[in-house]
C-alpha cells in the first residue's frame, strides 16, 4: 500500500505561524502567516484538494507587521487572530488583533489566480487586543469549541481574557491573571483546555507549566521544571481531560497527568534539537505530531496513554469478510512507537498542525517558508480504524 507522496508548498517569505482553519470542517485548509521585516506580510490560505493532490493558495495582505502567531476562530471561518510585531520609532512592539477575511477572497482568487500575488486583498481589522499596559502579546487562544466570543491573549506575564462583542468588533478585557515572581517572567506558550467546560488554561513560562482556572483566574497546578530548559509548546489531549503534552528545548516531549505533576507519565526523546510544537490528533489522540528545529517532523503513536489503549474495540461481525488480513493484524496490539519521521524540511520546523477536516492529514511549516502536507501512513490508519 503506497502512501501518497507529501505535497510541498513554498512561501516567498520566512514563516512561523500556522493554523488549521478550525471552523472549516469540509475543506482541508491551513492558514500561514509570514515573517518579513521589509515587505508587507501575508496570510496564505492553503487549500488542499485531497482527491487531486493539488494545493490552491490565496493570499491576503497583513500589513500590520510580521506574524508570530496565528489563530483561527472556531465558530466563524472568516475570523482569525494574529500576534504581530510592528516597529515604531525604532522600537519593536508586539500586538494582537482580530481580523476578518474579505468575504470574496475565494471567488476573487479563482477568477484571476495570477493577480493574487500582485494585487492581493487585505484583511479587515475587526479589533485590536491591545492593552499596552500588559506588555507584548505572545499568542492568542480562541475558546475551543466555543462560539467565537472569547479569546485569551498571553502578553508578557499576563493572561487576558477578552470578550468579543458586536461581531467581534469590540473587545473588552473581562478578567486577567498575572504571573508573579522574581525576574522577568514571560509566558512563552499557552493552551486553552477543551475540557471542564472550557474553564481551564495551561501556560508555559521558562521551564514551568501552570494551569489556571479561568473562573477565578487563579493558578490550579504548577509543574515546576517540566522541562530541563524552556517549554516551547503545549497541547491538551482532546479525549482525556487531565492529559497534557509539552515540548521544549531539552529535545524532549513529555506527557503529563496534571493530577500528578511530580513525574511525567511518558517522555519521548526522538528529536535531536529543540521541539517547537506538539499536537494531538483531534480524533485519535494516540497520534502525536512534533516539530523540531532539527528540521524534522515526527509522528508518534502513543497508544499506551491514549484514550484507546487497547485499540479500537470492534465486534467481529462488524468486520467485513474482505478484510481478514487487517483483522489478523489487529490481534497484536500496537505499541508506543515513532510512526514516521518526515524529513522534507531543510530548515527548522516551528509549527505543525492537524487538519480540522481530515483527521489523517497534517501540515508542517519550516522557517524557510516551506509548507509540507503529509498523511498518516495508510497501514496505521487502517489499523486504528479497523
Amino acid at each position, binding site marked *: 500500500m503506497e502512501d501518497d507522496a507529501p505535497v510541498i508548498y*513554498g512561501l*516567498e*517569505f*520566512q514563516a512561523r505561524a500556522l493554523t488549521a482553519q478550525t471552523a472549516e470542517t469540509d475543506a482541508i485548509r491551513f492558514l500561514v502567516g509570514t515573517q*518579513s*521585516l*521589509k*515587505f508587507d506580510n501575508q496570510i496564505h490560505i492553503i487549500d488542499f484538494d485531497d482527491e487531486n493532490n493539488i494545493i490552491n493558495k490565496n493570499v491576503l495582505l497583513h500589513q500590520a507587521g510580521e506574524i508570530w502567531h496565528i489563530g483561527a476562530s472556531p465558530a466563524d471561518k472568516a475570523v482569525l487572530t494574529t500576534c504581530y*510585531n510592528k*516597529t515604531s520609532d*525604532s*522600537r*519593536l512592539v508586539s500586538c494582537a488583533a482580530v481580523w476578518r477575511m474579505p468575504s470574496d477572497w475565494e471567488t476573487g482568487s479563482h477568477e484571476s489566480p495570477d493577480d493574487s500575488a500582485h494585487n492581493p486583498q487585505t484583511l479587515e481589522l475587526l479589533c485590536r487586543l491591545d492593552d499596552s499596559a500588559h506588555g507584548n502579546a505572545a499568542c492568542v487562544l480562541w475558546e475551543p469549541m466555543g462560539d467565537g466570543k472569547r479569546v485569551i491573549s498571553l502578553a508578557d506575564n499576563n493572561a487576558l481574557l477578552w470578550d468579543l462583542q458586536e461581531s467581534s468588533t469590540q473587545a473588552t478585557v473581562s478578567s486577567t491573571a498575572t504571573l508573579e515572581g522574581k525576574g522577568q517572567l514571560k509566558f512563552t506558550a499557552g493552551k486553552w483546555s477543551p475540557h471542564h467546560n472550557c474553564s481551564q488554561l495551561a501556560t508555559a513560562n521558562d*521551564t514551568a507549566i501552570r494551569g489556571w482556572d479561568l473562573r477565578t483566574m487563579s493558578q490550579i497546578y504548577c509543574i515546576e*521544571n517540566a*522541562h*530541563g*530548559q524552556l517549554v516551547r509548546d503545549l497541547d491538551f489531549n482532546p479525549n482525556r481531560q487531565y492529559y497534557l503534552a509539552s515540548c521544549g528545548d*531539552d*529535545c524532549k516531549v513529555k506527557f503529563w497527568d496534571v493530577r500528578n505533576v511530580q513525574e511525567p507519565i511518558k517522555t519521548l526523546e526522538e528529536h*535531536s*534539537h*529543540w521541539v517547537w510544537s506538539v499536537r494531538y490528533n483531534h480524533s485519535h489522540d494516540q497520534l502525536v505530531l512534533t516539530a523540531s*528545529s*532539527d*528540521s524534522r517532523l515526527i509522528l508518534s503513536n502513543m497508544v499506551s496513554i491514549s484514550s484507546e489503549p487497547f485499540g479500537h474495540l470492534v465486534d467481529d461481525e462488524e468486520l467485513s469478510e474482505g478484510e481478514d488480513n487487517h483483522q489478523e493484524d489487529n490481534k497484536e496490539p500496537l505499541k508506543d512507537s515513532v510512526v514516521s519521521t518526515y*524529513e522534507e524540511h*531543510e*530548515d*527548522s520546523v516551528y509549527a505543525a498542525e492537524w487538519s480540522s477536516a481530515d483527521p489523517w492529514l497534517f501540515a508542517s511549516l519550516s*522557517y*524557510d*517558508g516551506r509548507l509540507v502536507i503529509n498523511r498518516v501512513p495508510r497501514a496505521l490508519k487502517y489499523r486504528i480504524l479497523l
Partner: protein
Amino acid sequence: MDGEADGSVTVSEDSGRRRRVHGMLKLYYGLNEEGKTPEQPESLDPCDINGPHFDPELYLNKLRRECSLAELMDQETCMVKQIRSLDSDMQTLVYENYNKFISATDTIRKMKNDFKKMEDEMDCLSANMAAITDFSARISGTLQDQHTQITKLSGVHTLLRKLQFLFELPARLNKCLELQAYAQAVSSHRRARCVLQQYSHLPSFKGIQDDCHAIMDKLAQEINVVVRMDGGSSAKDLSECVELLLQLDEPAEELCDKFLSHARSRLESDLQGLEAEIRPYPSTSALKDASARRSSSAAPVGSPTDGSPKTSSLSSPSSNTDILEFIDRGCNEFVSSLCLVITSYQELFINHAQTGELASKNIPQMANGKLHAFVDDLAARYFSLVERRIQEEKGVGDNSLLVRALDRFHRRLQAVAKLLPGSAVPNQGTEIVIRAATERVKQYLCALQSFYMDSLTDVRQALATPRLSVAGASVAGGGALLGGPASGRDAPTSLPELLSSLSASILNQIKSVLASVHLFTAKDITFSNKPYFKGEFCSQGVRESLVVSFIKFLCQSSRQFCESAGDKGGSTPPALLLLLSRLCLDYETSTISYILTLTDEQFLVQHHSPVTPVTSLCAEAREAAQKLLNHYVKVQGLIISQMLRKSVETRDWVNTIEPRNVRAVMKRVVEDTTSIDVQVGLLYEEGVRKAHSSDSSKRTFSVYSSSRQQARYAASYTPSAPMDTNLLSNIHKLFSERIDIFSSVEFNKVSVMTGIIKISLKTFLECVRLRTFGRYGLQQIQVDCHYLQMYLWRFVSDENLVHFLLDEIVGSSAHRCLDPAPMEQSVIEVICERG
C-alpha cells in the same frame, strides 16, 4: 643232548648269562610267575634251547640238516663247555642254600627256648591282676552309700546359702540404701529377683519379695529424687542413675523423658548464657566480667584468637564478645554437652536396649525418636541464637574472624552428625553457614557500593577545589593554545591523576573484598568442600552477586548521573561526568575482563548455571560511557548555550551602538571552549579531524563575507526577487549534510568538542531568529561570528560545520534586520584582531 642244546646259545656276555641263570633258577622254584610272560612268544619255537617247548629231537635234526660237520663239532664243544659251567653254578647254589637253611634252623630253635620263659611270666601277671580286680570291687561296694550322702549334703549347703542371701536381702538393701550404694543394691536385687519371682507362692518368700519391692521402690524413688533434684551433679552421675533405674524396670519412655528434660535444663542454661552475650551489656562491669570469663575460657581452646580482644571491642560495638568467642563458647558449652548427652543417651537407651529384652518393645526406636526431637529442638534454638549473632556481624573489616567462627561452628556440628547419622542438624548448620556467607557477600557488595560512592564524593571535592587553577591555566592557554594542556597538567590534582587514583582504589577495594571472600573457600575450612561452596557460592555468590553486581551498579550509578542531573545540569560537575565516562570506557576495554578473570582464577569458578558473560558487561559499560560522554557534551553545550542565549535575549538589538569590540560573552565562550578542550584532552585522545588548509581562519573568513553572502543580502534588497533568498539558502542546504545537533559523540576529543560547539552555535542561531536587529545589531553579530570563527574551527572535526552554522547565524540575523547594512570585512577583521 643237554650239551648240544647249551652249545646252540652263543654266550657273549657274562652278565646276560648270569641273569638267565637266575631266571632259570627262579623258574625252577616257581618264584617268578610274571617273569615268564615276556618270554612266552619266543619260547614257542621248539628249536629254542632255553624255551619250555624245546624239542631236542627237532633241534638235533635241524642242526644235522643245516650245519656242516665242522660246525657241528664246534657246536658240540661249545655245548659241552656250557653244560659244564651250568653244572658248577648249580653246585654253588645248592651249597649256599644249604648253609642258609642250617642257620635258620638254629635261630628257630633258640626262639623256642625264649618263648617258654616268657609264657611263665605272663601267667604270673594275669594271676596278680585278677587279685587286684577283686579287691577294688570290694572297696567300691563298701564306699557307695557314703558318696551319695556327701553329694546331697553339699546341695543342701548351697541352697541354704542362697536362702540366707535372700533372707538377708532386705537388710542388706536397707544398708545399701543408707549408704547410698545404689549400684550395689540394684545388682543384689537383680540377682534375687528371679528366684523371688519363682517362689512367690510361698508365704515366706512372698514376704521377702514384698520387703524387697518396698525397699527397691524406695530406692527408685530416692534415685528419682536424686535425678530430679540434681542440679550440680555431672552428666556421668546422671547417666549412672538412669542406668540403675533402667535396671529397676522403670518405664524406659519415662526415663527417656526424664533424662532428656534434665539434659535440657542444663543445655538451656548454656543457651541462656549465649543469649545473654548477644544482648548488649550496658555496664562496664559486665564487660570486665566477660573479659574475665574470656580469659579463663580462652585457655582450654588453645587461644586461637590472639588479636581478637582488641577487635571485639572495636568491630562490633553492639555486643561485647566477638563472634569467634561467641561461637567458641557455643561450641564448648552447648555443642559439647549436647554431644555428651547424645552419647550417654544412646549408650543407655539405644545400644544397651538393643541387646536386652527391651529391644522387643521397640524401645530403641522410641528412644531414637525422642532423641531426634530433642536435638532438633535444642539445635534450632541454638541456631537461631547463632544466626542472630551472625546478623549482628555487620562490620566488614575483618572477615577472617567470621570465617573462623563459622568454620568452628560447622566443624563442631560434624560431631553431632557422627553421633546422630540421620539428623538434620548438620544440614541446617551448613545452611546457616551458607546464609551467613551469602549475607556476607551482600554486605561486601554494599560496602563496595558505598566505597564507590564515597570515592566519587572525594573526587567531587577534589574537582571542586582545583577547578580554579585548571580554569586559570586554561585562560592563560587561551592565547597560546599549545601551552594549554601542559599548564592544565600542572594542576595539583589533575583529572588523569584523579581517574587513575579512583580506578586504582576501586580495583584495590575489589581485590581486598575478593581476598576476604576467598577465605570462605580456603582449603582448611571444613565447609569449603561442600558442593555449595565449590560451585554455587563461587559462580552465583561471588561472581554474579558480588563482582558482576558491582560492575552493573557502577554502570547504573553512572547512568543515573545523566538522568538525575538532566534537568538543570548543575548538580553534577561536568568534569565528573567526563571522568566517569573515561572510567567506564576503561572498564569496557580492560578492567572488567581483568576483574572477572581474577575472580575466576581465584575461585576456580565452574559455571554450572549460566553467568553474565564479559561481553554483555562490557557492552553495558560502553553504553554507560557513551551516555556519560553524551551527557557531558550536552551539559557543557548547555552552559555555553545559556551564555549565548542570555546575551542574545537580553539585548535590544534594534537600538544598539555601532560595534567597537567583540562582545565579552564571545570571549568567554572561546575561553570556556578552550578550557573544555583542555579538560577533555586530559582524558581522551585527540581523534581524527578532516584535513584543513594551512590558514583556516583566513579562508573561512573569506567564505562568509564572500560574494555569495553579499548576494544574499543584495537579494533581500530587491523586491522583485524575494524568492531568491530562499532559493539560495535552500540550494546551499541541499548540498550540505543534515546536522544532528544532540547526537552521539565518539570517544575522542575532537568529536566531543564538535558536539559542544554544534549545540552552542545552533542555540545561537535559534535565538537570533527570534530577535529583530537594527543595522548595528547585525554588525555586532557579524563581528561576534567572525571572532568565533577565528577560534572555534580548530576544535572541531570538520571546520565546514562551524562555517556553515556561523554563516546561518549571520544570514538569519541579516534577515531579521530592519536595516541590513553589513559591515566591511576589513573592519570586522580589525575589530577582531584588536579583541
